């Protein structure tokens, strides 16, 4: 067990990032909810309104960062939960790969959506 000493990379960095993203997400998720359910009611959302918001560079970058951090936080959380249940060996590698690919696709698609919303695409 103790024969291989692992570096910070083995778990500590992801643990730390999970906390840092959490702090960020607490604020942004709350903001997102308030903005799109209470300030603007979800039922009244139209493309125009979305485009207006996304046209703002600050809002756009906030939402894009939201996407990336949420994806990391969520997917990393899923991965940890699986590892905690004893996922190991090849299985673990496969799951890690699948989750990474899924994350990248999500971010890619999310970025496309965001660009479409901001009217760039």
């Amino acid at each position, binding site marked *: *067990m*103790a024969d*291989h*000493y*692992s*570096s*910070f990379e*083995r*778990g*500590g*960095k*992801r*643990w*730390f990032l999970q906390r840092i993203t959490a702090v960020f997400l607490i604020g942004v998720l709350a903001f997102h909810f308030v903005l799109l359910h209470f300030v603007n009611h979800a039922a009244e959302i139209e493309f125009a309104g979305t485009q207006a918001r996304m046209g703002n560079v600050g809002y756009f970058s906030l939402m894009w960062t939201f996407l990336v951090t949420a994806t990391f936080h969520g997917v990393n959380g899923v991965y940890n939960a699986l*590892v*905690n*249940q*004893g996922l*190991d060996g090849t299985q673990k590698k496969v799951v890690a790969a699948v989750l990474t690919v899924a994350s990248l696709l999500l971010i890619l698609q999310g970025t496309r959506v965001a660009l479409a919303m901001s009217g760039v695409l």
Partner: protein
Amino acid sequence: MSTQIEEQRETEEEVETEPETESPGERRRAVKRERAAQREQEVETALDEAEETVELKVFRYDPEVADKEEPRFDSFTVPYHKGMTVLDALIYARDVYDSSLTFRHSCRQAVCGSDALFVNGRQRLGCKTQMGDLEWPVRIEPLPHQDVVKDLVVDMEHFYEQMHAVEPYFDPDETPDGELEEQRQTPENREKIKLSTRCIWCGACMSSCNIAAGDNKYLGPAAINKAYRFAMDEREGESRKEERLRIVEQEHGVWRCQTQFSCTEVCPKDIPLTEHIQELKREAIKSNLKFW
């Protein structure tokens, strides 16, 4: 007095003469029957005399005995008295009803850590749990998340391996020169590690931990607490502390802790295990970020 001596003599004569007519085996069985009848009588009187009796439901399993190969629960009715512990009740059940009832026990005072059991759904030391504080009937099982060797005895091998994995021994960077020269330690530092040194290796924490149940490589609360005991001991020195942090910050080390506090809640020595694990996480992050 004198009559007693004579009675004694008579029994002795019997012993001398009887083997002539009876085989030792027959005699043994006769004695056994006699004792069994006597015992039954005693048990009945004990149960009658006791103001209260309590029922134990005890997990039984023995891979070698035909009717115990499939795990089952046995019930024992035990006379209750004030101050009776779960261990007392188990000993009564074993000595009076079934001598094959198996469990570890030794000191009876919560320092040897032998009798951590799953009592009414919680990890507890049998010797320091009052029967009067429990809901009756009392259900007694071996510690969860560990293989059962027999009845209430679990295999502790994995627990010991995890304890040994953190290099659980004092190993200072340097020792004082003089033979009678002691290392200095501030009372504050001694106080800081005090609770962590109380661990009795009972395994209750490890058994209560959901993460340890799923991830067999997870060091577990007891071993991490052991690492804490040395990493925080100022006598060992900085470079040894770095090495210790490297052991606990491996993937299956401190990061696996999900702060469920189950270990802290069941610890019979009241060691704040989760707190110690959390402190090591922070120490590990700090030592890696360096600028903290």
